């Protein structure tokens, strides 16, 4: 069995009086995909944000590749120190930067040399088949192309873990199917550890056999052997 890339141990999170996550524990093995499935408001996005370090858990621990990165009420390793890629639901492409510059910002933050930055940017764009859009701004692209840019931006830094927050929810069915296959291909070719949040059972079925179903901030069901409740 592979070692755990992500371990969430007894995570609880409240927003005021609302209990968003209630004692949630999950393990995801290195190179595997976990799909977190559930309706709106069940806490799946909060779970992703806690893994990323964008939210602080009230109880429990987050361990990435053996390193405790968050503990109860504190961030031990800040988001940028966790070697993550994150695809947001609304993509959050930086509108004042071109596609190439969006990717370059990631590599520049990781202190990659200028020549390597340009090569890796080209490679990442080629992986998602949009290398010709390098000099365009996000608003000059279609929804599907923007989606690919967001994906390229998330993988260009060669992250240990890729987090995706309903990245396909705003796309039409054909494009969804196409990009889902693309994601599966990328995950396999790069051996990425991936956590994919969705409310769509089709997404869940297409992406992985390991599905964590959430309801009311709790894990309601787990399909797959690598998760513990």
């Amino acid at each position, binding site marked *: 069995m592979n070692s755990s890339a992500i371990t969430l141990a007894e995570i609880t999170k409240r927003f005021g009086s609302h209990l968003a996550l209630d004692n949630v524990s999950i393990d995801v093995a290195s190179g595997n995909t976990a799909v977190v499935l559930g309706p709106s408001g069940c806490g799946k996005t909060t779970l992703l944000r806690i893994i990323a370090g964008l939210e602080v858990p009230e109880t429990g621990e987050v361990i990435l590749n053996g390193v405790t990165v968050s503990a109860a009420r504190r961030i031990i390793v*800040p988001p*940028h120190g966790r070697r*993550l890629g*994150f695809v947001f639901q609304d993509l*959050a492409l930086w*509108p004042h930067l071109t596609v190439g510059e969006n990717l370059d*910002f990631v590599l520049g*933050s*990781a202190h990659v040399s200028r020549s390597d930055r340009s090569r890796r940017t080209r490679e990442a764009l080629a992986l998602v088949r949009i290398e010709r859009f390098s000099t365009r701004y996000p608003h000059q692209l279609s929804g599907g192309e923007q989606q690919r840019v967001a994906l390229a931006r998330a993988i260009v830094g060669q992250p240990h873990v890729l987090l995706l927050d309903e990245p396909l929810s705003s796309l039409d069915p054909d494009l969804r199917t196409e990009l889902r296959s693309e994601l599966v291909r990328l995950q396999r070719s790069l051996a990425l550890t991936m956590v994919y949040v969705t409310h769509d059972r089709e997404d869940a079925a297409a992406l992985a056999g390991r599905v964590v179903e959430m309801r009311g901030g709790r894990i309601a069901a787990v399909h797959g052997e690598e998760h513990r409740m």
Partner: protein
Amino acid sequence: MWQGQRSRTVVIGIAFAALFVCCVLPIVYLVATTFGADSDAYTALALDSRQRGLLYNTAFLGVGTALLATAIGTPLGVALARVPLRHQAVIRVIAAVPILLPPYIVALAWIYLGSRRGLLAALTGRDLFSAWTYSPPAAVVVLSLVLYPLSMLATEFAMRRVDGRLEEAAMIVAPPHRVLWRITLPLVAPTILASALITFVLAVSEFGVPGLLRVRVYTTEVFTAFAALYDFSRAIVLAVPLLMVCVVVAATAAGLLGDRLNTARRSAGVSPVAFHDWRRPAGIGFVAVVAAAVALPLLILGREALAARSLGEVVTGSGKAVVRSLFLSALGATLVVALAVWVGYAQARMRRSARLAIQVLLVLLFATPSTIVGIGLIGVWNRPGIAGTLYGTDAMFLLAYLARFVPVAVLILAASVQTVSTSQEEAAAVSGAGWIRTMRGIVLPQMRLGIAAAWVVAFVLAFGELGVSVLVAPPGDATLPIRVYTIIANTPASRVAALALLQALVILAPVAALGATASLRKGQ
């Protein structure tokens, strides 16, 4: 429904007609008059050494103030938006106070600090600063201390509107300072640039500070030509380059701002970048700037004022001017808001292109130098017939306040209108309410704080208004700013300081009340 539409058309039509008469007509008149100006007057524009000096001083004042005020205001705005400071609302109000103080009050304090008989000379026993006190760089420093809140508030406002997700996406890969530098600041750069351009326009439009610090610029030259030389043609011709620069720069600023002034939409989600480690430097920065821009000038004026034999006598001696100023400012602010509320409503509910066009016009009107507005008002109202009956009366002060401050009030109130969704009006309409009833019962009650804010801003600006008032004041009648400005040359400094201090305190009282109200509402 038809009834409702008709009443809306009538009210808004009247409001726009009033806006045209009060704010646009004086400038149109002045521009039209330049075509018929005496040809000899155009020699005033010949680029001789005197003109070059005038041009240099004006450009230096504008560019220097824009750069320095932005350098001071932008970091403070970033701190207000991203550093979790205690008592942030109070800090914001105190740091914004300088923009409400009449600039010449700060200039006066500056003179009492650095002049030959000023505080520094008294403390050091040597006259080291007087030459520098009356110089263009000194005028830049004084105006920057007065105008930096514009940049501060614009930066804070813009940063709060940045979509939090964009910063979150960057935080996944970069430390907070890099996120601020590469993502947040470039996104708010157009707003910062626009505020710098507006600062430039306000600086080159300023009359009181260069006048007191003996810096020859276009505004003082226009005033001299008109009020001292009685050369109307020369004053108009000299006003043209100033007006052109202001129009071009203000239009650029308005274009850069786009919808940013009117859209009350907040950014999606929570802004994640918070600089907890910057609390101490931010606190030190606020203390230093507020000390230099607010506390020090008031303390210097207070020290000078205490030398007056009887403060009560000084205040009583100017009692008439104080009462007239209070009355006229309150009445003027009420008229300004009464007009601006309808124009603001109309602007907020227009199509985007029309809304932006009106916004450009409003910024242009606000940026028009006060001396130009003053001359335009005199040209429009100093004539035989019914119009002439107002000239030479206190009504000219009210027209001056309307001409100067309706644009600002409209911008505030349009933003306030946008917080009320159009669907609320539609719901009232389908319930059978006419437009006036909808405004009275649904829209205006929700704009209460915006109306109060617009009134306070208009009152404070009117109470400190000098540039137009000094030109249109009826003979023998003076408001407090005119009295302070005109007695400087031949009255003991202590008396002038006492009056200036009184004026500052009257301005600060309603600001404090508004700040307290806002804090209480936030607390609730």
